[in-house]
């Protein structure tokens, strides 16, 4: 298998030619609702860190606008027939500190993310790597203990970013002073306020059109909208629902609505009485009008019937979302012997106003089928340690599972007690584990499909669906896009018209 794709150089060059704008138009300001904790790609799992990191770092491969994995710092790659060796031919690229990118950097970068001392939250994605062998300066082979079809996805994700080996050897603080090969360099970072990025003129795919990108941290969507309408911001990553129509009808602004990679669910704790009965869990799915949940809490989206984002090639065709049917739900609950005063503790994570709103809607629908949901709002750290992990002190909880380039990232752990829903199904766990190390695409697909169909029937979650990603921009901003599934910001071709 050999893949070669025209790099984005041409696109960027064309974009660069297209602008003859003034100096002020060279700076793009974007409002972002979250903010990175660190800019070291190997010690975080925060989406916000990778959204910003996308402009500073590059991986060997990346995701294109259609969601395919394409070469990036690697000119091309080939995979051995047994799926145990990945060979990458490297591009000529330069790090922000002036050193050249070569095979030693790949060896050092992959060495660091796997090292115990790094304690990377993503380390497990690289555990199958047995060795990384340079073939001269411009080629490298990654050898694996067993087939790892998800390897390319890991390398294309934010945590697959390539770092300079010299700086790694020095123990450089990438978290505060990132050095990558990316289209922009970090100019300044005022925490809780803004990150300023400046153009990397030596970018290997051709310098980006913009001189500067300013990313402002604005958690308030009302303030984001306010800034967009007064011209303070060129792009905002969230448009409040109440203002979406106003953005759409304003000729100076544009509303972009595209599918995100999220799967929104209400996880059900099957360790509890009645909730351990699949009939009850299915009934809960029927009791909630998920279309309303998606529309009201998340601003619209597509319903799903299993644990995979809508529109994914991995989504099994035979699975349809549960239909809203409170009568059938009541009948099922009665069959399962659920008492009339059945009460569930519905835990919602702060600070996610959308999940909190969704929870209130779920509560309202459950009341109609005679299930009493008591809402408890906990802070994110508490949620992670007490609900998602640890004692699992909840009946139901609302959360969004972020997009993954490979289904293994989303599905691993399901069917085992390690999953927070606690629905144990050895067959599901087995299918997923086997698929994770299966090279043959058709075989892999059918294994994941089987698992996803069973997950629909087992219903460890109330499946809400995949929300739309709705962002706003000035009509004159073109060439900006967000990476499918990963939601990273790509400013490389962005410019003003």
């Amino acid at each position, binding site marked *: 298998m050999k893949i070669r794709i025209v790099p984005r150089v041409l696109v960027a060059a064309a974009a660069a030619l297209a602008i003859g704008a003034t100096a002020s138009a060279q700076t793009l300001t974007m409002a972002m609702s979250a903010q990175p904790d660190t800019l070291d790609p190997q010690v975080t799992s925060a989406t916000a860190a990778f959204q910003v990191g996308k402009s500073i770092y590059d991986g060997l491969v990346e995701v294109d606008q259609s969601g395919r994995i394409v070469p990036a710092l690697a000119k091309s790659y080939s995979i051995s027939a047994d799926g145990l060796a990945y060979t990458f031919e490297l591009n000529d690229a330069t790090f922000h500190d002036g050193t050249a990118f070569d095979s030693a950097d790949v060896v050092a970068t992959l060495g660091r993310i796997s090292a115990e001392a790094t304690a990377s939250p993503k380390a497990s994605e690289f555990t199958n790597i047995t060795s990384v062998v340079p073939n001269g300066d411009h080629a490298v082979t990654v050898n694996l203990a067993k087939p790892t079809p998800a390897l390319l996805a890991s390398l294309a994700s934010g945590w697959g970013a390539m770092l300079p080996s010299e700086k790694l050897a020095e123990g450089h603080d990438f978290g505060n002073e990132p050095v990558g090969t990316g289209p922009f360099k970090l100019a300044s970072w005022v925490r809780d306020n803004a990150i300023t990025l400046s153009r990397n003129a030596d970018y290997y795919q051709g310098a980006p059109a913009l001189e500067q990108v300013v990313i402002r941290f604005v958690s*308030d*969507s*009302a*303030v984001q*909208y*306010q800034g967009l309408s007064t011209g303070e911001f060129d792009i905002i990553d969230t448009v*409040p*629902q*109440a*203002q979406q129509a106003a953005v759409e009808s304003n000729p100076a602004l544009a509303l972009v609505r595209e599918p995100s990679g999220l799967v929104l669910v209400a996880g059900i704790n099957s360790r509890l009485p009645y909730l351990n009965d699949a009939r009850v869990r299915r009934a809960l799915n029927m009791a909630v009008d998920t279309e*309303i949940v998606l*529309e*009201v809490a998340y601003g619209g989206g597509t319903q799903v019937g299993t644990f995979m984002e809508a529109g994914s090639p991995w989504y099994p065709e035979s699975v349809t979302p549960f239909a809203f049917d409170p009568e059938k739900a009541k009948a099922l609950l009665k069959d399962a012997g659920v008492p009339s005063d059945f009460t569930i503790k519905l835990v919602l994570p*702060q*600070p996610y*106003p959308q999940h*909190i*709103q969704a929870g*209130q*809607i779920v*509560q*309202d629908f459950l009341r109609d089928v005679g299930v009493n949901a008591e*809402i*408890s*709002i*906990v*802070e994110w750290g*508490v949620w992670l340690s007490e609900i998602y992990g640890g004692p699992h002190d909840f009946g139901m909880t609302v959360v969004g599972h972020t997009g993954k380039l490979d289904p293994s990232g989303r599905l691993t752990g399901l069917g085992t007690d390690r999953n927070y829903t606690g629905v144990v199904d050895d067959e599901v766990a087995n299918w997923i584990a086997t698929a994770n190390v299966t090279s043959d695409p058709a075989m892999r697909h059918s294994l994941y499909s089987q698992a996803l169909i069973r997950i629909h029937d087992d219903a460890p979650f109330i499946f809400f669906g995949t929300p739309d990603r709705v962002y706003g921009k000035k009509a004159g901003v073109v060439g900006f896009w967000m990476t499918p599934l990963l939601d990273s910001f790509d400013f490389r071709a962005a410019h003003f018209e």
Partner: protein
Amino acid sequence: MNRARFGTVLFVIIALAAVFAPQLSGYDPIKPDYRARYAPPSTTHPLGTDGLGRDVLARSLAGGRVSLVVALSATLLTLTLGGVLGVVAAGLGGVTDTVLSRVFDALLAFPGFLLILLVVASLGGGTLQTIMAMGVAGSPVFFRLARSFTRNEMKAEYVTAAGALGATRGRQLMRHAVPNFLGSMVVQVASTAAAFLLVEASLSFLGLGVPLPTPSWGNVLQDARSFLTTQPWAAVGPGVFLASASLSFQFMSDGMRDMLDRRS
């Protein structure tokens, strides 16, 4: 009308409005109505509706239930905690007094809001946690008041006289000293309640106070914040109720102080 009476009347009106919120506004403050989301003010919804289509007026009125209960319970707790220990410290004296005074001094050296924030955060947020945190944070003021009042009263002539007549020390305290300073404490109580109302709202604003969907003035305001620039009325309404309630306590406190001043 004097200020104490005005404050009391204002408080009663707000409290009644809170209790009868659904009847007054004609809407359930908790039940969502998905067809009427983000409605602007109208005759049917004077303050519009929120993101779940709930009447903002109904929620603003009902918000008083929790907010007032939280502020008053916390005040009661802080009064009891600080007051009782203050009397005990002064009454027993010696080591007890020294230890208690040290503890409350340390609490007092803690900037108030930071203390409340840390305690609420460590308890995980929520209604009961808020009450407890405010109760602890407010107590040093009452401790000091109670302790110095008690000490002064014990030195006062009539107490000494009662002692000469053979009354026990405990009875002296209960009969004479304690009732005497309670009057002055009331002033402090009312102004503490006013402050706690605002603190509860601030905590809810930071996401640490009373959890949804139960409305409190703080969380209704926090909700309204996300559409502040486009639907300001949703933030103005509950804020006016909150400020009025706090104002009513303030008036009570001021009025009572005036009365005490006049008497002395």
